[in-house]
Structures are given as structure tokens and as C-alpha cells.
């Protein structure tokens, strides 16, 4: 199988080895959920980069390429973050050298703007076309995508108290805002009346799908498909919030303020 890229296999195996090594060396345990989530992240990576999806993408199927990107940006990073534990990440991110950078990159505002800048840049016709033609560029961009995805999802699934998650309402607002740039990039692709990326015109298309129909399908996959996915995540977060925020708790928040008010 020519599409079993050794670089991907090696990368995934290395991540798995690191994870297992970290658990072994620390002598601590991870929950089955964490282990499963991490494994899920690796499987998503493998499926996106080595399987039939990748093959179809190489065969000039735009919708497959879009699916690949969405898996790398929206599916893999949350699983990865859910699989990590604070004791694994702390020495990596909070050491003297990395700490300032981590603080900056995982700031929700920076993460949001950074991810969306990546999203817009990648879909620029020139860069996208270059990516399709040049393997080195392509691999770099996939790595950037995964990194930007981790940045994006950090404020929702951070394993570290020191670089914390947003509070629940802010998480939901964050996901809502994410829909806007996603639609802004996907809508022009879906509505375009000609093929935007010339690479897709330069060879035969799998299954005889017309390049323009393929492009529309890809645009809609990002707009409606991924939009629906984001809303589903927001739904899960909402129910977690509704569960955690005990509705009839007699202990009142901000007790200090209250004491001040009462002493008047």
C-alpha cells in the first residue's frame, strides 16, 4: 500500500510510545476514558492521513481533502486533549522556556484568532494549490493544522489548571463565534460558480464526480457538516454545565460580598 506514509506511522507510534512511557515512568494511572480518548486521537490521525481518505484526496477529490482537514482540526485535538493528564503536560508546557509561549498561545483570544487566521490562509487559492502540488508544504500545513486545532480546543478541553478552560457560558459563546469564520470561509466555496483551486481541474476525478460538484460538496461539508458538529459539542458542554451548576444550592456564591452587604 503506497499510501501508508512512513512519516505518519512513525509519528503516531512515537506519540503512543511517549504516552505509554510517560504513564509507566511516572507510576501514575490514567483513567480508561483518558486512554481511550488518546487512542482515539491517534486513530483519527491515522485514518485521516493514511487511509482511503488520504488516497482519495491524492486522487483529486476535494471533499475527501476537506474531510481530512476537518478530522485533523476538529476531531483529533479534542480527543488528544481529553486523553492527556495534567501531570503529563505540566513539565512540558510549564518549564521555564516554554511557559511564556504556552501562556500566549493558549490564551483564548489568541487561540481563536490564530486558528481562524490559519483557516483563512489555508483556503487562499495560492497556498491551497501549492499545498496540493508540493508534499513538503502539504505535510507542514497538516502539522500546522493540528497545532492550530490544539490551540483552538485548549480553552474548552485544557488538562491544566494553570492554563485553564473558559467557564461554561464562555465556552459556548466561543463555539458560537467559531461558526462565523467557518461559514465565512465555507460559504464562498459553496457558492462559487467556478473551480477555485486549479489543481482539481488537472486530472481525472474519482467516481466521475464533476470538479465543481465536488467543490460544492466540500464547502457544504465544512459549513453544514462541521457546523453541526460544533453545535453538537456545544450541546454536550451545555449539559455538562447544567449538571455541574447545581440549581438549588443553598450555599451562595460570592459570600464575601454578601457579608459586606449584610453588615450595612
Amino acid at each position: 500500500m503506497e499510501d501508508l506514509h512512513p512519516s505518519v506511522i512513525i509519528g503516531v507510534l512515537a506519540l503512543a510510545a511517549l504516552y505509554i512511557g510517560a504513564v509507566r515512568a511516572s507510576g501514575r494511572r490514567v483513567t480508561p476514558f483518558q486512554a481511550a480518548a488518546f487512542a482515539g486521537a491517534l486513530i483519527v490521525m491515522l485514518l485521516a492521513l493514511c487511509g482511503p481518505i488520504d488516497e482519495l484526496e491524492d486522487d483529486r477529490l476535494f471533499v475527501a481533502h476537506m474531510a481530512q482537514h476537518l478530522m485533523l482540526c476538529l476531531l483529533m485535538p479534542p480527543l488528544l486533549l481529553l486523553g492527556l493528564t495534567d501531570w503529563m503536560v505540566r513539565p512540558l508546557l510549564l518549564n521555564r522556556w516554554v511557559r511564556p509561549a504556552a501562556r500566549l498561545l493558549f490564551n483564548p483570544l489568541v487561540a481563536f484568532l490564530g486558528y481562524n487566521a490559519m483557516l483563512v490562509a489555508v483556503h487562499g487559492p495560492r497556498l491551497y494549490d501549492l499545498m496540493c502540488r508540493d508534499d513538503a508544504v502539504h505535510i507542514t500545513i497538516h502539522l500546522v493544522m493540528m497545532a492550530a486545532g490544539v490551540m483552538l480546543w485548549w480553552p474548552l478541553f485544557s488538562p491544566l489548571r494553570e492554563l485553564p478552560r473558559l467557564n461554561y457560558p464562555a465556552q459556548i459563546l466561543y463555539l458560537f463565534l467559531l461558526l462565523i469564520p467557518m461559514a465565512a470561509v465555507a460559504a464562498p466555496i459553496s457558492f462559487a460558480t467556478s473551480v477555485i483551486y486549479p489543481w482539481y481541474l488537472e486530472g481525472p476525478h474519482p467516481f466521475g464526480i464533476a470538479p465543481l460538484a465536488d467543490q460544492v460538496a466540500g464547502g457544504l461539508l465544512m459549513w453544514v457538516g462541521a457546523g453541526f458538529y460544533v453545535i453538537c459539542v456545544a450541546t454536550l458542554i451545555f449539559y455538562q454545565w447544567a449538571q455541574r451548576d447545581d440549581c438549588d444550592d443553598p450555599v451562595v456564591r460570592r459570600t464575601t460580598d454578601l457579608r459586606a452587604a449584610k453588615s450595612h
Partner: protein
Amino acid sequence: MVALPKEITVEESYLEGGGLWGWLTTTDHKRIGVLYGLTTLVFLLIGGIEALLMRIQLARPDNTFLSAHLYNEMFTMHGTTMIFLVVMPVGLGFFANFIVPLQIGARDVAFPRLNALSYWIFLFGALVLNAGWLANVAPNAGWFGYANLTESYYSPGLNIDFWTLGLLISGVGSVMAAVNLLATVINMRAPGMTFMRMPLFVWSVMVMFVLILVAFPPLTVGLIFLMMDRFFGTHFYRAVAGATPLLWQHLFWLFGHPEVYIMVLPAFGIMSEIVPTFSRKPLYGYPVMAYSTALIGFLSYGVWAHHMFAVGMGPVADSAFALTSMLIAIPTGIKIFSWIATMWGGDLKMKTPFLFALAFLIQFTMGGLSGVMHAQPPIDLQQTDSYFVVAHFHYVLFGGAAFALLGGLYYWWPKVTGRLLDERLGRWNFWTIVIGFNLTFFPMHIMGAEGMPRRVYRYPGDMGLNSLNMLSTIGAFLMAFSVLILLINIYKTRRRGAVAGPDPWDGRTLEWSIPSPPPAYNFKNIPLVRARDAFWREKYGYEQPPTAAPAPAAAQAVEHIHMPPPSLYPILIAAGITMTGIGFMLWPRIVVTGLVLTVFSAIAMAFEYPEAGAESEASIGPATGLDTRKVGIWCFIGSESLFFASLIATYMIYKGRDLVGPTAETILNVPLTTTTTFVLLMSSLTMVLAQDAYRRTDRTWGLRWLFVTIVLGLIFLGGQVYEFASFYHEGLTLQTNLFGETFYTMVGFHGAHVAIGVIVLAVLAGASLAGWFKVRNRDVAVEAAALYWHFVDIVWVVIFSVVYLMRAIAKA
């Protein structure tokens, strides 16, 4: 929060005292709510009369009661009035404004004077919108004013200008009100009032505020383009220059569909208050209800093009929008079933508010079902622009929104006035309006299916539509009669009605814990919220079902209560803005007067009360820990982002469609602008330094950095003036081509924002020189201004990338 050392200790109703002057300068959210209520009532009557005149015209075939010209004005103004001047402001200005602070246990909204300003701007905008009637040039292009029809060569008169200007001005008021109330909900909740304990009415209107913030900017941009087309001869919607009139439809419906939910969300909220109260049960599925409200807000922003199936967007886009439109039926269905489940097994009290709630449930569901029908493009192609659609949206907006709003009126009237509305007249009101409504609008389904088109002023007598139309007209008059009963009810009970007492319905939420009508300060002691349905729990303890009698509230010593002071400036600013607008349209001479009045009053208002900004509010800190002014600026920035996004999107869409030069490729001076961009970015840095200095109370350095920031801003503006002048010199004017108009508009509006920022910073620098910052905690003013400044800089980074960088890359 603004505070005046005027201490109120007498427990007198908010309605008493002050006289006319007191109402003109009021900043009390309850008085402003009442002003909104009265204004919308007047416009309800005007819009209703317009509807009756149309129904008289349509009662018989080939009728000559109204001319075609007048009929056009009637349906345009009926739609515009009912949507922009009745249903939306009654939800936003009356219900939300009056009830939200009471339900979250606050003494007023976050920015009381801004609240007054919103009202006056809304009122003046509404008057401008209707001013056309006086000269017989009322707007006449339909409530969605499709481009082409609104362009000056089809509509040369002032009709459309009144429409554009009225909507622009009143839109400013709506956005201000939404910023204000959103900041209120976020930050002014009483201790213990977490989001998960908020009454669902507050949840619903909170989503509405967000929708207003994100939905109005596209409309504003669309209206600005239309104005420029009409006044300056640009071609934003003119195919002649390569543009497309469809741009208007996209911008309008990007606003227009969320607007439907803006109108209906308060109704959902009212339902979620009335149904549990009169079923004497907690709301079924609270979290699901809250979430479905938020989800409706999410989804409503992705369905706008279902209003445009008939323009031919292609099967793919049609399918996508059909899919998202039908998705909305899910959260809406959840709500309907949750209300039914709340009633199930409840101890139902059939009072007038509850009757209206029941009617809402049935009629809104019918409107929803016909909505699902034309969410499918093939069916929509049959139904579009027919009376079927008229029937559909009246079932949603009248049978839905208006019934719930009427229920809300009967429900909260005792809180507003202290007197109950009469139950017997209420029933008469209810049955006549329900029967009249169905008589009017149900036949329209059939008329539409038979092929009767909308907006046509007469029909021939041999189409089988005669009796249906007559039925519809009879129904309309029955509804008018019903409104008359409501007015009689109001008039009769205003002085002699039954005294309501604080809690006439055995309510569940905090507003029923205070006297009716409430005292000016709402809550003597800020309540402590320990549960959802806070007041019910306090009355009946924490066990279900309610057994014990209500426990008397523990009397506590009155604190010193500081209330927002009255102010004349809101009405002056609103007058200034309106003068500017009218002057722009009719007498250019008064534009300058208007602008001066606006700017002077705004600055004067900022420094009106020396105590403003000092944390004299003893009661509680903000619920989020963030300063309320910063929360307000953040909300405003959210709205502004969408404003610039609309401008930038237009630039991108029209890129490369120019028919004549010069275009971006030939004319842009990238090196120069890169330099001024660098200067602007540096100004953000110096702004941070200024902020930091003020935070350390180092006012000397603070002032220096502020000054440097101003100079850098001015250099940027100078660069822009130079750039515009040189382009003009090279033959690129606003009218030359699409690049010219989109470029000048986008960059020009950004420049205007920078200029406003410079003025704000200059005012702050002046205040700093005058020693204003010596009072503790006033550095927040610098921080708020800085937030705005940084935002404007970020917008420039985007514009610079889109316009200049892309062109540089294209060249390379």
C-alpha cells in the same frame, strides 16, 4: 454604574413625582419601559389602522378605496411599523427593560443614561420613519425594500429616504439597548443568581440581545449602501456597474431572519413565565429549555437564504438552507412539548394571561407547521409572494408573538401599575381577538394556495376569492374591536381597578417579592438567590409540593440607596443624531448643528456627575468580576465586528468585478500604507503603556503616553487623507467603479472609527489635565477606551491584509 448621592428612603412608587420634566430626563428603567410601552401602543394603533385600510380595499374585488400608490405605502408602513416599531421594541424596550432588572434582583440596568438615550433615539427614528405621511411620501417599497426597486431611478421621491433614515436611526437605538441589557444580565445579577437559576424570560431575552448585536450590523451596512447609492451615485446594488442587487437581499435577510427570532424570543420567555405560574408547577426541563433557546439563536444565523429560494441560488445552496431551516423545528418543538409537559398534571388557573398562553401554543404551532412547509424549496417556489406566506408569518408573529405579548401584558400589568386588568373584559378581549385573528388569517392560506399574490392592491371578481377576502376583512374589524376592548380595560382599571398587591398570581420570580408598582430603587435589600424559582422557594420552603403559607420576608435595615440621577443629555444626543440625519436628507445646513449638539452632549454627559466611576455602589460587586463598563464595551465590540465583517465581505465579493479602472492592482500605494499601518500598531503599544501608567496612578506618564497615542492616531489619519486625495487625483472617485466605492466606504468607516477614538482619547487627556483621574478607580475609563482602540487596530490589520497584502502577494 452611575450614581448620585441622592438618597431615597421613602418607599414611593416609581410612577410618582417629577412631572413632565421628570419623565423627559428619567433614567429609571421602569419609566423608560413605560415610555417604550406607550410609544409602541401608539404605533400599534397606527399600524393597525393601516392594516384596516388595506382590508377595506381588499374587501371587494376591483375596489377603488385606495389608490395603488397609497396601497403600496400602506403595506410597506404596516410591515415596517409592526416589526420595527411595535413587536421588537415592545419586547426589547418594554418587557425586557422593565422586567429583566426586577427578575435578576438589580436596582437598574447597567447604564441608565444609555437606556434613556436608546429610547429617545428609537422614538425619533420612529417619527422620521412616519414623517413621510405628512408630505404624502411615505415609504412604499415593501418592508424588505428590495434593491433595484429602492434605487433612485425607480424611487426618485423622498419615500425611501424616510425609510432608510428612520431604520438607521432607530437601529442605533436598538443596538444600544441590547448592549446595555446584555451587560446588565451578564454583570448585575443578584448574588446567587447563576445562569442556571435565571428565570427563562431572562434567558430568552439574553439570546435576543445577542441576536440584535449580531443581526443589526448587516442591516446597517445594507442601508448605508442604499443611502450612498441614492445620495452619492454609487453602484452597490446596480448591475450596470457589475454589482448585484442580490447583495441587498443577502445583507437584509442576514438581519431579517434573526429578526424573526428577535421578535419571537421575548414571547417564548413570557410563555415560560406564564405557563409555570398558572400551572403551579416548575417549568418542565429547565436546562433543555434554556439550551433550545440558545440553539435557536445559533441556528437562526444560518438560515437567511431560505427567504431567497425564488432568486435561483442553485440546488445545492437551496438544499443546504432547507436543511438548516428545518433543523430549527427541533429546538422549537422541544419548547412546545416542554410547555405542554409543564401544564400536564398542573393545577391550572384559567386567568387571562394563561388563556393567551394557550392560544399562543396552538397558533404558533400552526405558523411553525406552515413554516416547515415552505422550508422546502419546491413548495416555497409555489407559495412565495402569495397570501400563503402572509398567513404563515401572521400566525407566527400575531398568533405567536403578539398573543404571548398580550398575555405578558395582562401578567405584568399589575406589577407595572399596581392595578389588575379586569378579568371579564380580559376574556372578551381574548375571545374576540382569537376569533378575529383566525377569521382574518386562516382564509389567507386558501387564498394563497388559490394563487392570490401579495402586495397587489386589487383582484378581479371572477377568481373565487371574493367571499374569502370579505371574511378576512370582517375578521380584521373584529380584531380592531378587540383592541378597543383592551384600551377600555386599560382606561377603566387605571384608576378604579382592583389593587394588585405585590404578588397577585402567586408568582415564582423575584419581581413579585417587591411592591406593585415597585419603588424607584426596586429592591430595598438586594435579594439573596438560593434556588431556581427563587421567590416561590422563599415562600414555600425548599420542599415540593408547596404546603406552608408564605413566610413574611425578614425586615432588614434599609441601606443607603444610590439611584441613577436624571439627565437631560440623552434626549439632546438623540435630537442631535436625528438632526444630523434629517439635515443630510433635506437641509444640509443643519448637519453641522446636529453633529456639534451630539458631540457636545455626549462629552457633557460623560462628565455630568462627578461621582461617576467611583465605586460608591455599596451593595454588591459585578457578577463576573469584570467592570461593567468593560463588559459593555466588549458587547459593543462584538456588534462592531459584524459591521466591519459586512463591509469587508462586500469588498471581497465585489473584488475583480469592476468594469473600468483604476483598481487595486494599479493604484494602491503599499509601501506608504505599510508605514502608516506600522504607526497605528505602535499606537496600540503606547495605549497599553498609558493604561498601565494610569493603573499605577502614574498620571504624568499616563498623560504622556496618551498624548503619543493621539499623535500616532493622527499620523495614521493624515496618511489616509493623503491616500484618498492622491487616489482622487488619479481619477478614482466614489462613483468610478466597484473598487472605488467598496474601498472608500470600508476604509473610510475605519478612519471614522479611528477619528472617534482620537476624540475620545483627547477628551480623556483633557480630563486627566483637569485632575479628573485623581479619584480612585477612574482608570477604568482609560481601559474601556483602550479596548475600543485595540479593536479598531485589529480591524485595520484585517483590512490591510485583505486589501494591501493580498494585492502585494498577487503582484509578487
